[in-house]
């Protein structure tokens, strides 16, 4: 750990989360030291043989601009183990965002395979890909990408509205809204429920985006430079929330960043350079538990 100041201490919750600790109704209960202890031992035990959440092999992707073909990914292999935070790091134009989009089925590779939980997802039909994004994935972006016409609560509810038809939504409304409110509570924005995105600060918008990403209870969260547009303080809050989600619920996170210090806090790092994975001298997989132990 190069910079001890940025070390994440997940067992010390952010101040705004402390008062929430007493509320037991939330499924995203704030982590307690004893919980972390058990998790920690579990993690270090399984460190070597973790199942992959999402894997990509030999990914090739190029963009066509008029007649010139710009290759972006030139055969990328990628593995994100279950329950871990994986960082994708690289220079601008190294293809890290494209890789994330391919993993998130927002785009389709020209070659190679992507498997989610052991199942191919790169050859799904458009409708199945839409359903996959809606049900299995949570996504957050550098520019938050909230819908400006909707209130904070409605933004969080949007994926649920998309997955339900009009009548099934109205039937399940109370349940879904309850869950959305818990998520908003968890990110500490319950006092801004009725506000429009333009009335929120950047950090608040990103927290809203996290709540939105979690509404369908996904097993994988893709984050595209989640702190790229935020000041240090707000960025830290976002990272803390992500880390807690990972530790508390074993949420697998794939995060694109260009910030080395953030990458260092992650469980594993994939470096992209010119559309290829940069081979580093093999280093032992850093885990959060190591970081906490002061490694």
């Amino acid at each position, binding site marked *: 750990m190069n910079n001890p100041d940025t070390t994440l201490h997940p067992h010390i919750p952010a101040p705004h989360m402390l008062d929430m600790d007493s509320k037991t109704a939330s499924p995203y209960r704030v982590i307690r030291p004893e919980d972390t202890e058990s998790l920690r031992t579990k993690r270090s035990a399984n460190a070597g043989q973790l199942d992959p959440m999402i894997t990509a092999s030999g990914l090739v992707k190029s963009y066509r601009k008029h007649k010139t073909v710009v290759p972006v990914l030139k055969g990328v292999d990628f593995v994100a183990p279950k329950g871990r935070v994986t960082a994708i790091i690289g220079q601008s134009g190294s293809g890290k965002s494209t890789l994330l989009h391919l993993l998130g089925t927002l785009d389709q590779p020209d070659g190679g395979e992507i498997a989610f939980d052991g199942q191919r997802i790169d050859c799904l039909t458009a409708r199945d890909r839409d359903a996959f994004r809606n049900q299995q994935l949570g996504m957050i972006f550098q520019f938050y990408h909230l819908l400006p016409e909707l209130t904070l609560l409605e933004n969080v509810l949007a994926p649920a*509205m998309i997955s339900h038809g009009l009548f099934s939504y109205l039937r399940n409304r109370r349940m879904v809204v309850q869950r959305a409110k818990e998520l908003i509570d968890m990110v500490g924005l319950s006092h801004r429920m009725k506000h429009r995105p333009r009335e929120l600060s950047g950090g608040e918008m990103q927290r809203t985006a996290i709540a939105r990403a979690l509404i369908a209870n996904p097993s994988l969260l893709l984050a595209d430079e989640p702190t790229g547009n935020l000041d240090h303080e707000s960025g830290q809050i976002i990272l803390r929330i992500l880390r807690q989600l990972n530790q508390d619920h074993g949420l697998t996170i794939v995060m694109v960043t260009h910030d080395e210090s953030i990458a260092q806090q992650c469980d594993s790092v994939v470096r992209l350079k010119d559309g290829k994975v940069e081979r580093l001298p093999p280093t032992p997989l850093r885990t959060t538990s190591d970081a906490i132990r002061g490694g």
Partner: protein
Amino acid sequence: MYKFLLCMRYLKTRWIALASIVSVTLGVATLIVVNSVMDGFTTTMQDRMHGILSDIVLETRSQTGITQPQGYEERIRARLGDRVAGVTTVVTLPAMMTFQRNGNSHTQQINLIGIDQNTFASVSDFSKYLLHPENKKQLDFLLKNNGYAVERERMQPSGWEYRAPMARYQKVVQQRLRNAQELEQERFEQLQQKIQEETQASDGAQADPVAALMAGPGIQIANNAQQISQFDSEKEQRTGIVLGINLGSIRGREPDGTVQDFFFLRPGDDVQVTFPNAGTPPRGIDEQFTIVDFYESKMSEYDSTFAFVPLEKLQHSRGMIDPQTGAGAVTSIQIKLKPGNDLNAARDALRDEFPPTHDFVEVRTWRETQGPLLAAVQLETTILNILLFMIIAVAGFGILATFFMIVVEKTRDIGILKALGATGMGIATIFLGYGVLLGTVGSGVGVVCGLLFVWKINDIARVIEWITGREVFDPTVYYFDTIPTIIHPYMLVWVSLGAILIAVLASVLPSIRAARMHPVEALRYE
């Protein structure tokens, strides 16, 4: 669910899109107003036309006409059964009407119609257009005392109240004229006497040719005076005639601007009618008639040409009565059906009964007799509708452009929705639904505006008159006091559905474009 929510939100926050729908609103409102007024005009006109025309007419163009109308009537009744509400026989022929006014002779072309006053009312609304209240009940071709058109305050005294003093006055004038003529004659004779005596005295018994020539006019004038005295127009009337109101009046304006009919003929005046007899070759016959009433259908074509006289009188004068049987010939038989019967079916049945090759009669419905006029109005309505729908189509392109703008503006939102798992179909539905919403709002407002306009159209016309100083709606031209309007509910439905359809069609292309957007490119869009 998100589709409906977003539709509503876009409607609430994108008021500019409503501006594009204003053209739809205007188009819809205009269509409703135009259709209502055209329908009002057509219906009023048809009512007026139909008022004088019976449902079905059997007509012959032969000079002698249908010689055995009773036989025809029986066959018609046998063929149509209880569908018939009334049958009447009519003689129609072109004629010329002459009357004296201010010492001048005036001549007008008329359609002389001989009617059976007892049965004619059973086939048309003829009686209700007459001026005198008693004639409205039953026309008897007798001059009434007075009381013509009580609702016309400016109408001068008519009937016997007018005819008797006029006749007395004329009698006095004639008497004085006669006295003057007699005096003249006396003087002339004295002068002649004197000349004769002088000539005889000077050069014997030779007659003067100049004096013999000058004796002529005096005798003629005396003969004329003799003729007039045979008929006492103070007490007697000639055969009654009912004239179309425009044959006896001119519509004009008082100095204060109110529209008024100025009568130059009044009930009680005599007119001379010249018409052909039934002989070969036809010869003109002159008959004197006394105007007993006017007829006002408010169809200028009828009001300015139709003149009704008793059927028998006309048959008699024209020599249409068979000397052996005493049956009078007619030129047409008019039939009224009971309400709700199909005119065309009855017409076809009658055509079958009286094949044109056999009987030389033409069977037509009243619509067919007025075919060209009705067709012209119909054509006008159709073309106006097409033109106005083109206006709405133009509005459709406005919507198309606006929607493309909105789709471009919402590119990132579309990307977000796709990233959250919305299908292309769902995205398209948002914009299609937005089109439906805008179309519904636009045409709804348009319907309301159109109905308000139609409801207050006469007030609006008055306001426009007041502003521009020009008369929008001239009663002297149209014979309507107010602009007639009729609103058909199906027309409202048709117009608003059409407008909504255009709005939806205009949003199809932008919707497809939105649905096909690539999520990554949409998310990157700045």
